Structure formats: structure tokens, C-alpha cells
């Protein structure tokens, strides 16, 4: 589910849409999603935003995703942003969140990956981890940090 090829560091984007487009292109290029995923996520983000204010109000995250129909295999694309972009906060119409870490979720069968996903999202509640991700200098480091969180809680093989 975590793959170095799906990680982008120092992303300079002007809007949430640009970040979604970038991560969607990456996911599509490596066969994780259909091309339709990008527009589906942009539309869905308007109706059901995924910005999340995190503890400490620092390094906030967003978890854009969409229906399983647009997904080919499970993956998480990660963008560490050079400057925050604005997302709308989950469960609101108008509450804005400056976001620095974006995790685009390609979920085909939630049952397969929901445990890993839940662990990643829970781990991201730790400000130290978000700071480490922000300072990471390579995709390998990002995947290593996230895998450490998955591994520390379970020894289950991840498909």
C-alpha cells in the first residue's frame, strides 16, 4: 500500500485542486487508479471535504479519496507541501484548514486495508511524526516513517 514511487516532497502547489491533480497523476501512472479518479476526487472534495485540523494546529492533513469505482488497487500517495494550501475541513462547508501533508487514498476494497489506513491516520495525530514527515529528505524516509508506525503495532504482512 505504501510505495516510494507515490511520494512527492517539497510540492509547490497553489491550491488543493493542484495537489489532488498531481497525486492523481502519480496514482494513475503506476496503475493504482483510473484517470477518472482525479475529477471524482475534486468533485467529492467539494461535497465532502477531507481537511483535518490536527492536534497543535500545525502540519494539518487532508485525506482526499473517492468511490471504489475509480480505483484499481490499494495505495496511498503522499505529498509533503513546500507551502500550505487551503482545504475545507471535514464535516463543514466553509471552515478552512491550511494543509501541509496530503494523503491521497486509493481504496478498492476497504476491508483489506482499513486496519493499515486507520493506523496511519491515528499515527498522524502525533505531532512528532508529522514534523518528521515534513522534514523528510527522501521518499524512502517517508515510507520508512509510516511503515514504522504500521510495524510497531502489528506484524501482519501487508499485501
Amino acid at each position, binding site marked *: 500500500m505504501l510505495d516510494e514511487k507515490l511520494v512527492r516532497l517539497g510540492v509547490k502547489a497553489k491550491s488543493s485542486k493542484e495537489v489532488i491533480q498531481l497525486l492523481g497523476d502519480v496514482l494513475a501512472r503506476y496503475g493504482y487508479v483510473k484517470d477518472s479518479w482525479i475529477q471524482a476526487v475534486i468533485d*467529492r472534495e467539494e461535497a*465532502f471535504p477531507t481537511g483535518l485540523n*490536527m492536534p497543535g494546529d500545525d502540519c494539518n492533513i487532508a485525506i482526499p479519496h473517492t468511490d471504489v469505482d475509480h480505483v484499481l488497487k490499494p495505495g496511498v500517495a503522499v505529498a509533503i507541501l513546500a507551502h500550505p494550501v487551503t482545504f475545507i475541513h471535514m464535516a463543514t462547508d466553509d471552515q478552512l484548514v491550511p494543509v501541509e501533508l496530503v494523503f491521497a487514498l486509493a*481504496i478498492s476494497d476497504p476491508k483489506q486495508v482499513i486496519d493499515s489506513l486507520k493506523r496511519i491516520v491515528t499515527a498522524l*495525530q502525533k505531532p512528532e511524526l508529522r514534523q518528521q514527515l515534513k522534514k523528510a529528505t527522501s521518499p524512502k524516509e517517508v515510507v520508512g516513517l509510516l511503515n514504522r508506525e504500521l510495524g510497531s503495532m502489528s506484524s501482519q504482512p501487508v499485501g
Partner: protein
Amino acid sequence: MADKTLKILAVCGSGVVSSSMITTHVKEILGQYGIKVDAFGLMPQMVKSYVDRGDVDLIVSTTKIPGEIDVPIINAVALLSGIGEDEFTEELVSAARRIIEEKGKGG
């Protein structure tokens, strides 16, 4: 003897991703209080017709839900962000206990 299993709808935009995450959390939390949960995910636009058919005790949601809904709704965004998680747990547990008590009275 009343049915002590709580029927919970977990609601999110896609009906699967965030709702699956919050479902696992909710089961864990209520499990610690000895409350059994039967939960599944649904998209917001399907909630009203589902609730109107009965058989739902409580809703936990990461989105707004259209229509007038007759069962308690608890905002579950805290489970994803970690902000206000204790308050969420408190609200969830007290709502669950109240519902189970009412079910008991109703016979």
C-alpha cells in the same frame, strides 16, 4: 430481556473509507464498556430512508446528513483528527447507555 446490541450507522462521503475507520474505533470504544455493536457504513444521501425504516439506534458521521433524522447523530471527525477524542468518547458512551436503557424500558 432487551436487545443489548446497539445498531449504529457510520456515515461518510463515500460510505466506505472514513466510515470503516470510525466503525472500528466505535466498536473498540463501546466494547470496553461491554456494549455490543452492529455497525455499517452508508453514504449521507441514503441515511434518511434507511433511518425511516427503523432499526437504527445511533449515527456517527464525518459529514453533514441531509433531511430530518430521528436518531441521535454524533460528529466523529475527532476520531480521525484526534482533536476532541475524549469528548467524542464521552458523548458516544453516554448516548449508547441512554439508548440501551430506553430499549430496556420499551420491552
